[in-house]
């Protein structure tokens, strides 16, 4: 191990200074999500709003980051502009390794810069620079300028926001190294509220490795399992986009604002079509040999006489759902074009797609006017969606500024809440059934990866509330430990308890290796407690009526089963989030 405590870089944007703090607690919270929650309790303010300058924006890595393959993610934690409660988002890119080699277990950013600024931090570097000239700039062109301002290619991770983050959009994302994102719950809005356009993390240190033979041997085994065997083929080959066709067949792919779960003509947005026709190449997060990042291309004629421009666009299942099926866009070029525009604006793609799907139906139903939407939104009409995404990112008028606060917020003012596809936040693309709807609506990050609710739906036809909720709670606990490491969740098939135990042990964390279960539970409780203290009430979460109208391969959704699941899951969450007994 590098150290048995946490080394935390605490940056204060008010004073423009930083401090290195040491925190105990490795054996209790491990790192990642556990460490982030611990740090929020130390530096955060449950009772103050998310944009109070003193609220921290936290990034945390885990004890195995850099030591083993696929321990390649970073947890970002903050009070969310979406619901003003504590939340988390996870991303990879180079962020985790840059933090590891920048010699920090966590980075805490407090305060608000007076003008738009960029922070550069490393093991031997600290600098805050005025970048007011980047205000309103999209993520792509900002990245180009920032790269030349802060050299360090190959050991640099660059986190940046687009116009949406600057405009306080509740679902603005933080772009990480172009192709990854802290996407959900509005982390980009928090950066914007701090007047922080970019964070450049320089990973310029190295550390001695354990001298035992166990470590390199185990590395070899894990590396082989993660590359040679079938387990990861899916992520490398077609990528998560492989899910489009089977979920469509399973009547679980949301189409046109979830008015349908299947379409006989998914067109060009299946994983196979994307790979055959649009895939340029793969890329990877640093420290991950799997390379699940899929990069496609768009080509556009900008002038007669064969004058083209082209752009490389990352795609994934979630993106194909959000700006593809959800908006009725089935042409692969069009879908990639929308992804690109979402990227430039710095929006969370799922929320942006789902919000515009709602707006489309609202316009159809006469709840909205074309004056409000500026362009006539119609399912399948990509050209107008492209314009709408820019309006949304730039908060162009009152309507888009309102929609940028969340679909249900907009619906509460304008009407149309029944068909808002919101499960805690704008939904992920798995209309698999009751367990998933409840799991995402109530889950900690309102993400499909909080638990395997979507896969539970696909495997179980019975309606056993107890069993389903037991599964959610237990599965979340395991994921809590993994996201304290912070492992990519795609590797969960390889990093079972035994492997994780061996890995931790081989680099000197014997206690953590033995206490996985209790540490996982401790983290789970800590996160829920922190969340509830910031105002979360699982009973108050609404599941819009649209979810009762969904038809999956199992048939119609059973509202009573869904309500019972929700009651029981809420009860369990409240129990998990209870303050510990004296």
């Amino acid at each position, binding site marked *: 191990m590098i150290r048995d405590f946490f080394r935390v870089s605490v940056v204060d944007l008010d004073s423009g200074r930083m401090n290195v703090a040491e925190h105990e607690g490795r054996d209790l919270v491990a790192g990642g999500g556990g460490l982030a929650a611990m740090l929020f309790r130390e530096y955060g303010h449950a009772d103050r709003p998310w944009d109070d300058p003193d609220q921290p924006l936290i990034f945390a890595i885990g004890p195995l980051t*850099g*030591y083993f393959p696929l321990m390649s993610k970073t947890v970002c934690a903050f009070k969310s502009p979406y619901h003003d409660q504590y939340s988390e988002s996870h991303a990879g890119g180079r962020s985790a390794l840059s933090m590891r080699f920048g010699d920090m277990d966590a980075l805490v950013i407090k305060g608000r810069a007076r003008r738009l600024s960029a922070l550069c931090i490393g093991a031997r570097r600290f600098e805050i620079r005025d970048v007011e000239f980047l205000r309103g700039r999209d993520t792509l062109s900002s990245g180009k300028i920032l790269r030349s301002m802060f050299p360090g290619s190959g050991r640099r991770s660059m986190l940046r926001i687009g116009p949406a983050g600057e405009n306080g959009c509740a679902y603005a994302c933080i772009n990480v190294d*172009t192709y990854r994102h802290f996407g959900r719950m509005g982390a980009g809005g928090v950066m914007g509220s701090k007047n922080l356009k970019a964070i450049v993390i320089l990973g310029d240190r190295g550390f001695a490795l354990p001298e035992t033979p166990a470590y390199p041997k185990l590395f070899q085994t894990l590396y082989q399992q993660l590359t040679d065997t079938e387990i990861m083929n899916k992520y490398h080959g077609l990528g998560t986009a492989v899910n489009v066709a089977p979920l469509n067949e399973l009547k679980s792919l949301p189409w046109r604002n979830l008015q349908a779960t299947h379409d006989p003509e998914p067109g060009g947005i299946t994983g196979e079509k994307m790979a055959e026709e649009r895939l340029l190449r793969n890329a990877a997060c640093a*420290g991950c040999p799997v390379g699940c990042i899929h990069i496609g291309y768009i080509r556009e004629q900008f002038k007669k006489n064969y004058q083209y421009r082209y752009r490389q666009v990352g795609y994934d299942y979630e993106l194909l759902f959000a700006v593809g099926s959800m908006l009725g866009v089935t042409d692969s070029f069009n879908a990639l074009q929308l992804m690109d525009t979402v990227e430039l604006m710095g929006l969370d793609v799922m929320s942006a797609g789902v919000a515009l799907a709602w707006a489309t139906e609202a316009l159809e139903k006469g709840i909205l006017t074309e004056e409000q939407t500026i362009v006539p939104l119609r399912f399948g009409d990509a050209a107008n969606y492209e314009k709408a995404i820019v309006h949304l990112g730039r908060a162009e008028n009152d309507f888009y500024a309102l929609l940028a606060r969340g679909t249900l917020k907009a619906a509460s003012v304008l009407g149309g809440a029944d068909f808002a596809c919101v499960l805690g936040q704008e939904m992920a693309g798995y209309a698999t059934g009751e367990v998933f709807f409840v799991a995402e609506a109530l889950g900690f990050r309102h993400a499909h990866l909080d638990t395997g609710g979507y896969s539970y739906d696909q495997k179980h036809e019975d309606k056993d509330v107890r069993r389903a909720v037991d599964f959610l709670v237990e599965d979340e606990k395991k994921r809590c430990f993994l996201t304290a490491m912070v492992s990519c969740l795609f590797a969960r098939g390889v990093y079972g308890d035994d492997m994780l135990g061996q890995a931790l042990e081989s680099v000197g964390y014997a206690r953590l290796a033995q206490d996985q279960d209790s540490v996982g539970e401790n983290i789970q409780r800590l996160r829920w407690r922190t969340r509830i203290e910031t105002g979360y009430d699982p009973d108050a979460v609404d599941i819009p009526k649209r979810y009762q109208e969904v038809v999956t391969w199992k048939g119609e959704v059973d509202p009573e089963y869904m309500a019972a699941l929700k009651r029981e899951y809420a009860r369990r969450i409240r129990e998990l989030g209870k303050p510990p007994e004296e």
Partner: protein
Amino acid sequence: MKKLSAARMEQCIGCHSCSLACARLVHKQLSWNKAGIRIRSSGGMAAGFEAKLCLACSPAPCAEACPTGALSQRKGGGVIQKRKLCIRCGKCAAACPVDAIFLDHLVNPYVCIHCGRCVAFCPHDCLEMKEISVKEEGAS
């Protein structure tokens, strides 16, 4: 005598597995810098990746610049490194025309010794070990 070359970098996914493996196995370090091969994007991820790697020069300018013999000419190309002789003057890195020598903050030079241990860790088959002919005049 073999030489490592980053022969197919257009296949690179930027995973750094190669540099991490070199640091781990050759230099016993957890690092992506303290390695004979370093990966960087060629101006943003969209532009693809390049490798900073020793070309196995013969004669080797870095060895010629080294005042102590810590780096000496390897037969056929590249250098043999004797860490104990290094006085950390950094002249080798300055002499290398392709920025293949990494100096850490203590001015320890890291350079590829063409052992090939990284090759097995590249999942995309970007790296290659190739036989090089040993030219007598290249030897020191």
